[in-house]
């Protein structure tokens, strides 16, 4: 449980090290800005560091910028890897 403590509480939303995956809701090509949704929260961010972003893509948000797109295919593969590692006895 977060406690409101400076290191753990809501202030973390302002933490410069935090980067979160957010869904692109709208894009303004003129300003290279986008509105993203982080759960219930909407936020305007810059697309200056990424290319070929479409609405409904997930991007990693950091200090007001999209850093990268999140690959849905790779995310599925990683989840499948967890499931496999957790289930299968290795032969070795």
């Amino acid at each position: 449980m977060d406690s409101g403590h400076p290191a753990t509480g809501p202030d973390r939303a302002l933490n410069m090290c935090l980067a979160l995956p957010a869904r692109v809701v709208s894009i303004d090509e003129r300003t290279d800005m986008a509105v993203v949704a982080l759960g219930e929260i909407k936020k305007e961010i810059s697309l200056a560091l990424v290319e070929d972003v479409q609405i409904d893509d997930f991007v990693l948000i950091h200090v007001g910028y999209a850093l990268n797109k999140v690959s849905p295919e790779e995310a599925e593969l990683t989840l499948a890897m967890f499931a496999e590692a957790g289930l299968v006895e290795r032969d070795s």
Partner: protein
Amino acid sequence: MKYVEEFRSQDLALKLARTIKRECDPDRQYNLMEFCGGHTHAIFRFGVQDLLPENLRFVHGPGCPVCVLPIGRIDNAIHLATEHGVILCTYGDMMRVPASGRKSLLKVKAEGGDVRMVYSTLDALKIARENPHREVVFFAIGFETTTPPTAVAIKQAQAEGLKNFSVFCNHVLTPAAIQNILESPEVREMGPVTIDGFFGPSHVSSIIGSRPYEFFSEEFQKPVVIAGFEPLDVMQSALMLIRQINEGRHEVENEYTRVVSREGNLKAQALVAEVMELRQSFEWRGLGLVPYSALQINSAYETFDAEKRFEIPAIQASDVKGCECPRILRGVKKPTDCQLFGTVCTPENPMGSCMVSSEGACAAYWSYGRFRH
């Protein structure tokens, strides 16, 4: 939230923990350094250590940009606000970091200095536009993740002809720091730290890619696994490191493929390369002077370099007596080894940088794990 919750599944975490336990050789020790403070935080917040065998130890590295910035550079920033009368903009993390004479940017602000917390470099540009008759300096810190937004701001300022905007650049480089830790004779002298493998940072790697780690996995024969920040990412990456160690391999593997590629973000890399260049040397708290470990603004953009615009002297400032931050940053001491930890140094009243930043090892120990040790 998508891409968050499914990477925190408790059920999968317990299953992964069983696999890790099964594959750990009970007769050997696994010391795995998580370079990045984001991983330190995830390990403590989600109690990952509690799920793993005793002979697997997380060694916390220096990957907290707030923590590694030497006090002298914070003193410089304070002087910009107090002596030069600029509007000093910085990320919230920097506000409470103790500087010399028990000052901090927050105290300077309380005493009337014009220090402003910004969420983004875009906010700093906005402040510069709104205050054309004031000098506005962005106090830039951070690793490769945070550098491209600074480069964008400098380019934007040039495009707009914003003459009152400049950047006090303190951006640092991850591979140089990891190499320094591996090469440092001091690390060997100061404590029995052998590092068997590294968790590569998540978001730094999203920018630089996995390729830069290939050099030292080869040179130092240590495995590196680029790991996401969620608890299952950390556990899966630990398993990948254990397998490499058991099999005597030392490769760069990438667990965080949903964001990190081998090449990284080429657009961001190009922006940084256009605006910045390597510094010959930069001081890190805990590591000392590290060659080619930081960036400065290049001559083409020097009008936006606060170090060219203002007199910014090199200041040698010392840590608070008894503060073990330097050793904690190198992984040779744990926060609980410090006599100030939890007594006079707490997140409410921090003495050292590792307690201030939420990514710092001391803050993580205090907030989540202090009863464990």
